[in-house]
């Protein structure tokens, strides 16, 4: 991914100043939209019970939608937004704690069609 990014930056370097300005504005607008979406999803009132249930449903929906992509990974979610990912609970918990989320939803994603052991 970083190689791809390097290539894009190199390509962007060949643009004219006007084109660079257009590209910069476009990217900034896209980032702003993602941030707004994140704020909007976060603003679902956890203080209301309906909001809490809705947020929990979004967590489950996110896992269902991304099972193959994140199989085996631990993920931290806030509504339908991925906040952090990693190979273990402590790794993800630390990442989330640094962001300042007090009570994160963290889970390990099982691969679709996997069979887990249910105990004896």
């Amino acid at each position, binding site marked *: 991914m970083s190689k791809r990014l390097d290539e894009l930056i190199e390509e962007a370097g060949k643009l004219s100043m006007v084109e660079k300005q257009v590209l910069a504005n476009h990217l900034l607008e896209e980032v702003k939209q993602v941030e707004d979406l994140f704020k909007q999803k976060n603003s679902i009132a956890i203080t209301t*019970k*309906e909001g*809490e*249930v809705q947020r*929990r*449903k979004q*967590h*489950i929906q996110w*896992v*269902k939608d991304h*099972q193959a992509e994140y199989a085996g990974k631990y993920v931290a979610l806030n509504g339908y937004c991925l906040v952090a990912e990693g190979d*273990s*609970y*402590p790794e993800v*918990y630390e990442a989330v704690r640094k962001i300042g989320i007090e*009570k*994160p*939803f*963290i*889970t*390990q994603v*099982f691969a679709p*069609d*996997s*069979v*887990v*052991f*249910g*105990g*004896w």
Partner: protein
Amino acid sequence: MSYHLSFSKTLVYDSKKKGITVPISLKLAEQQIFLDAKIDTGASCCIFERRYGEDLGIDIESGIPQRVETATGIFTAYGHDVTISMMDYEFDSTVYFAAQDTFARNVLGRVGWLDRVKLAIIDYDCKLYLSSYNEM
């Protein structure tokens, strides 16, 4: 070489019950149910009877479908985001509710519970020691 661990809480469990049985609660919004669950370090996840999910107002089949294997066969369960509470420790976790209402076990397994606590068991004394991973 010796190793030392410290824990915040301890619980004496009932040796007359099958397995290591502990009191927990499951919570969703305003609904909270209290039940006994068995700690099972071999279980991949936390699995509960269907009726408990329904008591919490959950549409069981809307969850994450998951096939679960036991020594006696394979069954389907559905994952939901629920708060597991035990000895003042609360975690928002994915817990699985069995699709079949004949499944009559309640298990605290790895994902959702064991992966976020520090646990020691001295079965000789029927004593369990517990801390949240996050507080140490």
